[in-house]
């Protein structure tokens, strides 16, 4: 990491990204409750340190793949907020023209190759994207985000073996929040865990406290350099905590008493804020960053709410070039 002023700017950027993710998702939750957002909504509140810390180390031409909980990854990679919010509300100006929604958020213009409604669905896509980039002579890399639930699906094994075999430029990031939907990870995952699985497949793995955004940033910086340098794939195992339920409508009643409260004290934004204050950053600087983020997202919500619905005709578009769509 850089020292002095550069470092402070980097930390503030990190803080800013995390605040924007939090504000986006809190705004989305409110909009969902208000009936403005249809469909399933998976928020990553409490996990922002991972997306922000990793993506700070990526170039614009690097690519990412994501899972069902993808708002943070998208924002951290630079996806346009207006297009994201419109997408969540199903509006014409959404990145996906209202066809994807939260679970399929994507912004190819910034290398965000899409969220995915299928657990582990992004893994083979990421390795293939890396293979394609190499074929095209690019030194861009691919970062592949997935949860602890994905490591029990076959594509995890296949994709990591594949990436290691061809020494592909992929950084795998396992966001381990200890739960998959409503089931605790330890009750469905045997053996010593994701890092051991990765190593057994020839992918060096590094653990990190995912709620310590600085640590994530530092680990990602090192791993991204190794991956871009031709060292082959790496895996970052980031432990974190999902402060909300699985979806916006899940009260997470199955959590143990006090579990979430305890976790709140360890959440990444608070922790980075404390660190920044310690470093002498003025509280109002941080308040301003947070406030700006909230304002940005509220405006995005209002704008999306006022934005037009897609024309019904749009439903028939973007299918394929060959063959009529056979209107009903």
């Amino acid at each position, binding site marked *: 990491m850089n020292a002095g002023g550069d470092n402070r700017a980097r930390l503030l950027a990190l803080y800013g990204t995390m605040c924007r993710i939090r504000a986006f998702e809190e705004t989305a939750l409110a909009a969902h409750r208000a009936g403005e957002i249809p*469909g399933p909504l998976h928020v990553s509140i409490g996990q922002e340190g991972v997306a922000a810390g990793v993506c700070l180390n990526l170039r614009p031409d690097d690519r990412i793949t994501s899972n069902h909980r993808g708002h943070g990854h998208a924002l951290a990679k630079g996806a346009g907020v207006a297009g994201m919010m419109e997408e969540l509300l*199903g509006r014409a100006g959404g990145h996906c023209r*209202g066809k994807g*929604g939260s679970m399929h958020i994507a912004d190819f213009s910034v290398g965000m190759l899409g969220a995915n409604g*299928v657990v582990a669905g992004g893994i083979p896509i990421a390795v293939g994207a890396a293979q394609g980039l190499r074929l095209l002579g690019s030194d861009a890399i691919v970062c592949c985000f997935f949860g602890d*639930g994905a490591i029990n699906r076959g594509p995890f094994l296949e994709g990591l073996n594949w990436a290691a075999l061809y020494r592909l430029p992929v950084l795998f990031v396992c966001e381990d929040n200890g739960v*998959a939907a409503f*089931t605790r990870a330890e009750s*469905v995952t045997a053996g010593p865990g994701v890092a051991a699985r990765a190593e057994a497949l020839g992918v060096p793995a590094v653990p990190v406290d995912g709620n310590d955004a600085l640590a994530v940033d530092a680990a990602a910086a090192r791993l991204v350099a190794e991956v871009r340098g031709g060292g082959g794939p790496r895996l970052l195992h980031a432990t974190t905590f999902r402060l909300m339920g699985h979806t916006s409508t899940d009260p997470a009643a199955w959590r143990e008493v006090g579990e979430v409260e305890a976790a709140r004290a360890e959440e990444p934004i608070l922790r980075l804020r404390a660190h920044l204050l310690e470093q002498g950053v003025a509280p109002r600087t941080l308040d301003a960053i947070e406030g700006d983020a909230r304002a940005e997202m509220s405006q995005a919500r209002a704008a999306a709410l006022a934005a037009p619905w897609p024309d019904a005709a749009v439903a028939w578009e973007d299918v394929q070039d060959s063959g009529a769509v056979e209107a*009903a």
Partner: protein
Amino acid sequence: MAEVTLVEAARLAALQEMRRDPRVWVLGEDVARGGLFGQYRGFIEEFGAARIVSTPISESTIMGAGLGAALVGTRPIIEMRIFDFVMCAMDELVNQIAKIRYMFGGQARPAVVVRMPHGMWRNSAAQHSQMLESWFAHLPGVVVAVPATPADTAGLLVSAIRSDDPVLFFDPKNLFPLKGEVGEAIEPIPFGEARRMREGTDLTIVTWSAMVPAVEEAALTLAARGISADVLDLRTLWPWDERAVLASVARTGRLLVAHEAVTVAGFGAEVVSRVVERLGPARLRRAARLGQPRVPVPFAPVLEDALKPDAAKVVAAAEALLRD
């Protein structure tokens, strides 16, 4: 007789059969928490973790392990959570479960039920809304159940659990809140018998699964306009009640098949073709199919609504069929 929701009817049917037969058990994600839709609520308390197995997110193995367990004599209910995830388990379903009895010359009986809640549901977009039931009618070796009411869901699930054939059970997830009567003791409903929803003389409407309420509504509208529809809910697509359909079309001379799935190469094509082959074109004045256009399911309500076959479209299709 109690009035219960469709999802509760399914729960009661599984409960009854699990009490009756200790070889019946359930495997799938989150089933110990009652399943994603509460279709196994309370089961873990009554049957314990050996018979209510909450699994990892490992669809291939959920399906394949269900098969293996059937081969040694248990009767698993394989819960796929959402139909679309079965795409992660197609080798196990298509190459193994559907073929194993035949391939091994009758040595094996893969008596599994595969439950797959399917169809559009609350704007879940392309990866959580598919209806591909026609695929499995084309696949030898399996039974295809597509119920649409609480009573049919319960009765067909009982049959499915008791069947020695592998049964693909398509829970109509959008109809889970629908209410209806279900008996104290749930009787099995035989596969291959359509339910006559309405008697009529002007045209035959054949439908199933999530389309049933829309067709019901459409039939009322048509009746109000003086058009009398003979309406059949097939309930199972393999076997399917060809006899009932042929008898009806022989009377009405006009056939409309309405399903939520994509029209192109949907099961409606089989129904129309069979009627043409069996009755001969001469006894058929008109035939048509109504389904989704060949388009993935979009997220935004305005887009989903544009594509989704509904009562108004059924009415329009029926009226068009009578205009000649």
